[in-house]
């Protein structure tokens, strides 16, 4: 097949390999820029490690967004606020439990772990309940996508307002006033032990999602429903159960991501809302509907976001995530793992 030069160019820049090359070049460019600006390699590497840590938390949220999209064909703009909800429900549990000593070297005590185990399934159920109330009636009416988007936005504002009512607009911590010293990991890279815990737990959960999707019957049914919903029905797959599990997993992981983000940074009523953009950037980068792509995308976004802060005001982090999303949409809208039509 003969292609015009323009088309050929588009093919080349749109291929997945080109995407990897571009991502690699961005990294190299950052390193070179750091040399020029006289930034230490250590600082840059520290930021890279921080990016990986952020990527782990983002991945927990992004998996939920992409699974919900894959199974229900809707963009859940309330997903960030499910993360907020998880973080603050965790705060209730931590506050109610009698205070224990910190589990050295970490800054948190047993209360945080108990809260985590309680809140993750709880928010999964809440997500399913919200689907019953807000989205299922729309599906029954075969509503337009815009209606789903509006309903999701409504839920997002609703959840955030609840947080404002109960906790106010100020930021807070799980353990106010507790010192969180960083330790040297190696070669001058300093992290807080909490952050290693966060990354470790995120990786465990991600592996858990992988095993669930690949090895269990309901996981395979979720992938089948995402692939071809009509054929899933015709095969006798119980779509109601698939939807239930999609929300349990998506909502649970959102809560996990929210709690871990809250432990790492702070709790703010807008935290989830502000994570929504990087979440969607991750999901689009990793091909919408592809759970593993969303995880990979989350790490890329996390790393680029953190490393960019060596050169520009960290407040522009969202701008960087947005820029990556726009570039992907322009060059390869189907994402890293998508098929060309």
């Amino acid at each position, binding site marked *: 097949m003969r292609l015009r030069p323009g088309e050929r160019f588009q093919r080349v820049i749109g291929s997945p390999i080109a995407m990897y090359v571009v991502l690699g070049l961005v990294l190299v460019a950052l390193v070179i820029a750091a040399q020029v600006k006289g930034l230490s390699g250590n600082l840059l590497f520290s930021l890279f490690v921080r990016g990986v840590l952020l990527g782990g938390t983002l991945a927990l949220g992004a998996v939920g967004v992409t699974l919900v999209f894959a199974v229900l064909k809707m963009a859940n703009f309330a997903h960030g606020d499910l993360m907020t909800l998880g973080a603050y429900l965790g705060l209730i549990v931590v506050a109610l439990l009698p205070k224990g000593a910190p589990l050295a070297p970490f800054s948190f005590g047993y209360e945080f772990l108990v809260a985590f185990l309680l809140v993750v399934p709880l928010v999964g159920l809440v997500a399913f309940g919200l689907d019953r109330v807000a989205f299922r009636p729309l599906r029954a009416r075969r509503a337009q996508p815009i209606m789903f988007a509006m309903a999701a936005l409504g839920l997002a504002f609703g959840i955030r307002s609840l947080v404002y009512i109960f906790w106010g607009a100020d930021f807070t911590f799980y353990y106010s006033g507790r010192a969180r010293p960083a330790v040297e990991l190696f070669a001058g890279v300093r992290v807080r032990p909490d952050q290693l815990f966060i990354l470790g737990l995120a990786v465990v959960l991600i592996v858990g999602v992988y095993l669930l999707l690949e090895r269990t*019957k309901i996981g395979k*049914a979720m*992938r089948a429903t995402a692939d071809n919903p009509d054929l*899933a029905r*015709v095969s*006798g*797959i*119980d779509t109601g159960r698939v939807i239930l599990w999609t929300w349990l997993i998506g909502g649970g992981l959102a809560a996990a991501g929210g709690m871990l983000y809250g432990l790492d940074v702070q709790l703010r009523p807008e935290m989830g809302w502000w994570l929504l953009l990087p979440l969607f950037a991750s999901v689009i980068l990793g091909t919408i509907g592809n759970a593993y792509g969303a995880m990979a995308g989350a790490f890329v976004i996390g790393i680029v976001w953190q490393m960019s802060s060596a050169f520009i005001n960290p407040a522009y982090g969202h701008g960087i995530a947005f820029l990556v999303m726009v570039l992907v949409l322009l060059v390869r809208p189907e994402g890293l793992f998508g098929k060309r039509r």
Partner: protein
Amino acid sequence: MALLRVEDVQTGYGEMQVLRGVSLTVAQDEIVSIVGPNGAGKSTVMKLVFGLLKPWEGRVTFDGRDISGMAPEKLVRLGLSYVPQVDNVFPTLTVEENLEMGGFTRTGSLQEHKERVYELFPRLAERRRQRAGKMSGGERQMVAMGRALMLDPKLLMLDEPSAGLAPLLVDMIFEKVVDINKAGVAVLMVEQNAKKSLQLADRGYVLATGQNQVDGKGSELLSDPEVARLYLGG
């Protein structure tokens, strides 16, 4: 006694009527083929039986039970199985996972059923870890039929199983249909490839403009010059 009975059914999409009175039966051990020109409503009959469309008039019974407009997920439990014409596999799932999804409603082990499908289609046994979306058209058709056989259906419904396949593969698929039928599964199929499908069918129905025109033994329909001239393209 007829296993499947479609009685004078009318239906369509939205306002548009497609079927204007279709009746047919399939007995327990038969292969029945529906043939006819494009737009005759052949695929619509399949969708109607499988609950994807509700009848406006008339009714559908299976094993003596009224199943008009019953949801597909219930029908599979009664012993009906359906292979759509297009998009009939889960592309990102492996061959083996596709088969497992076909047996979703079964609670016990699926091993025995999988082995039986692999016996019928040895090609699939070689490629059980391959993603279905990366396979050829013929292999995909095998996956689709294998998926539909996982619940030991009493009736297998095939929508254009030979569409888009090379002639050699068409023969192979039709041979498999006969094998499946010999194993005790009734088959109802819709086919563009009228001659070949009537050759192997016990009985055939010629459908045109949403109505039954002629029916009879497959071989009789084939040798009927009128049928050939009007509906089978000479």
